[in-house]
């Protein structure tokens, strides 16, 4: 190879290296973007596919009882009456009720379920067993503990009992799956009694249901602790 061609070749290589160096950051951004897209969980995809919660503006507004935590009496649930346009169809009504429960009370301290949890599906079997499928966040974001997990399930069953009499029992799924526990303690392999005033999770013997403090503070603290690690 004569010197002239060597020069051309070296020049070409230099241009290619400079071009690659300039293009690399843009390429890296594209790779990260693609990676994020592929990491989108099936749950996220499923949530996007879900139709928005039906708003039955045509339905009459009725008084519904939501069981949230009590600030005055630490460790108990209290019924809060709210007016909602509720469907007469039991399945739709249960979805509307549970979405309202998940949205939480005006006072976030009285929240019983993690704010990032979502109801993915709800259906009622012919024997009156309701099946509620919640997003992963119900299990991963709830503060771990017997008390806090029992509060979450109890608020769901009591709220269903008060508003959807067709639901007599409840199975809770997480992201479409049966799981052993909610967050390491409460047994989710069983069916919870709804219509018999918490036969599955009976109240304390004294007759006063001692459940837990509102979980909002614990949730916030847990989030902060998780971020630090």
């Amino acid at each position, binding site marked *: 190879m004569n010197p002239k061609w060597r020069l051309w070749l070296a020049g070409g290589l230099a241009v290619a290296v400079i071009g690659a160096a300039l293009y690399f950051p843009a390429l890296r951004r594209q790779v990260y973007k693609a990676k994020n897209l592929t990491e989108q969980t099936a749950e996220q995809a499923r949530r996007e596919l879900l139709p928005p919660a039906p708003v039955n503006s045509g339905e009459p507004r009725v008084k519904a009882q939501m069981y949230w935590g009590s600030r005055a009496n*630490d*460790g108990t649930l209290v019924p809060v009456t709210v007016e909602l346009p509720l469907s007469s169809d039991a399945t739709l009504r249960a979805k509307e009720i549970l979405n309202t429960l998940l949205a939480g009370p005006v006072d976030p301290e009285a929240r019983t379920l993690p704010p990032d949890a979502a109801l993915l599906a709800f259906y009622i079997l012919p024997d009156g067993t309701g099946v509620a499928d919640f997003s992963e966040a119900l299990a991963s974001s709830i*503060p*771990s*503990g*017997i*008390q*806090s997990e*029992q*509060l979450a399930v109890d608020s769901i069953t009591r709220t269903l009992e008060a508003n959807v009499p067709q639901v007599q029992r409840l199975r809770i799924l997480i992201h479409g799956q049966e799981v*052993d*526990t909610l967050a*390491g*303690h*409460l*047994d989710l*392999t*069983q069916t919870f009694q709804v219509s018999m005033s918490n*036969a*599955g*999770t*009976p*109240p*304390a*013997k*004294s007759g006063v249901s*001692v459940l*837990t*403090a*509102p*979980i909002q*503070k*614990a949730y916030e*603290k*847990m989030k*902060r*602790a*998780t971020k*630090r690690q």
Partner: protein
Amino acid sequence: MGLNIVVLDPAHGGTDLGARGTEGIRESEVVLQFATQVKRALEGQGFQVIQTREGNENPSFDDRSARANAQRGAVFISLHIASTGLPGTVRTYVEPDTAVSRDPTGLIPWDQAQAPFVPLSHRLGDMVQAELAKRFKGSPDVAQVAPIRQLRTTAAPAIAVEISSVSVENREDLDRMAPGVADAIAHGVAAFRPSYVVPVMPGTPLVTQP
């Protein structure tokens, strides 16, 4: 047969940290330290103590239950620290009443192992909780009922004791509770000892002494 053994279960461990507080408090670590003091107090009452874990490992629910199910004359106590609840209070939990499957072989399904022991668990839970209520103001007087996965597969009187909470401002606040919790559990189990009987399993023929 008398009650001689206590299977002590420090919950969580390994990668399962359990409840976490903002001060770096990890339930899996705290319960292990509580277990040391509870063990000492129980041994002081004449019990042999077996722990489901001694270090930072995480046996499965079934492995923990199996430690108790392999014993004769044992009770099972699972130790927890809550994320919630009034700091400085303690609650004892027992399984709800469930129907026992009647199997002609006399065998009880593993996942219903606790069912025949529920009445005894309630008695044990009430006795331990009564002792805890004396020492920790604001704690309930009687045991609470909750379906707890760990207890369901345990074929022995079984309770879970949950202390509030990892959200205390200082770790020392929790550490100060350990001697009282240990003392209450030891006295509660000792008070329960005369009540202990092995329940007759469904389908098992009654065998009487000649």
